[in-house]
């Protein structure tokens, strides 16, 4: 429908919509997160749902203990190598459409614990992530911001055409490799179908080409 006409009609008090808009509006207004905290960030996640920050305003206060009932996984905290298989398994158990917020420095990259032998350097090595929020831990406002970003993303999703999301394409993966415990490390250490090392010249890290470090 023509956007101009739609705007014109709404001025006259006539509300028009499309199935896609209604569908996305319904989905974005009732995101049910998985009741799943890993570390420090989980406490801020709980604080976000409490009286002062009141996540319920955005339709996302119904934390479900079962992955089968959840739409959104908030990876809140450090993902250790011992925990990584369970995180992927929980993600696999969630029904489509499903979304992931990577909350805090640890879930993004390992954060302050990056150089630990048992710390996974970012959950995006194994599962696709929709919204990253930095911080150690991020404030509740930052988590609410991530929610709003996710709502915007859901609102803009096309249900048809080649830009449609992964879960609407038959044959696309909705389950991902669960790593196994190896003798020295996880096997595999990353899922190449999900994550590739970003193309930066590591040897020049720390310099901007100006000659100054």
């Amino acid at each position, binding site marked *: 429908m023509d956007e101009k006409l739609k705007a014109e009609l709404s001025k006259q008090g006539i509300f028009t919509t499309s199935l896609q808009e209604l569908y996305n509006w319904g989905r974005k207004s009732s995101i049910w997160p998985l009741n799943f905290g890993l570390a420090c960030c989980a406490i801020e996640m709980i604080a976000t749902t409490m009286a002062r920050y009141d996540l319920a305003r955005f339709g996302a206060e119904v934390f479900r203990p079962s992955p089968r009932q959840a739409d959104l996984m908030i990876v809140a905290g450090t993902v250790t190598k011992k925990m990584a298989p369970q995180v992927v398994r929980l993600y696999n158990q969630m029904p489509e459409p499903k979304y992931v917020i990577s909350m805090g420095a640890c879930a993004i990259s390992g954060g302050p614990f990056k150089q630990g*032998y048992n710390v996974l*350097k970012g959950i995006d090595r194994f599962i696709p992530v929709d919204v990253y929020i930095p911080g150690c831990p991020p404030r509740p406002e930052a988590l609410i911001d991530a929610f709003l970003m996710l709502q915007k993303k859901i609102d803009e999703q096309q249900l048809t055409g080649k830009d449609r999301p992964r879960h609407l394409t038959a044959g696309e993966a909705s389950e991902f490799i669960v790593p196994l*415990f190896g*003798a020295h490390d996880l096997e595999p250490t990353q899922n190449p179908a999900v994550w590739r*090392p*970003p193309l930066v010249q*590591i040897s020049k*890290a720390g310099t901007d080409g100006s000659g100054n470090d």
Partner: protein
Amino acid sequence: MDLETIKSTLEANVPDCRLEVIVNPSPSGQHSLLVDAEHAFAVASFLRSSAGFNYCSNVTGIDWPAKELSEKVKVKKIVDGVETEIDEVSKTMIPGCLEVVYHLFSMSEKIGPLPLRMRTQDRAEGVHLPSLTPVWRSAELQEREVFDLFGVVFDGHPDLRRLLMWDEFEDHPMRRDYVNPDDYEYEPTAHDDVLQRANQHRSTVGER
């Protein structure tokens, strides 16, 4: 009750035990008692039952790799018929060991900590020490942790499994010579040693 009194009481009550007071030069003044592995259990039982140390707060391991100690020693030598003093570097190898420390307190006397130490023979084969879990239950999980992270085998522990790492894991990561697994695919950092590992990863695994 000072450490020398405890030592002499123990020597009188546990026959043949070899005890040594390790002096701690720091201002904390917490001197510790080194006990040989064979008599450790008897010494611990005596400390618990008769000396009042009923609260074993902390158990931990320490890794001491073998190291070379070089000292300058003045040696008298006859050079060209004249006796002169010459500095010579004498090198001695200190063999490595794993050490386990128990911090004991007495709840009734309100004294402590008394650090009780045990040492293994080496860091490869002779890593066996007696478990003190039958004496102080609090050592149960902590000895499992020392077994996991340092590789000290506690004989007589009721349930000696890895505590923190998974069961299939083979290394002992808290040892000083442990090398991190090679997951240095992407290191947006300027830390020299991390950067070196990242470049090393690239040269072995290659660009993908």
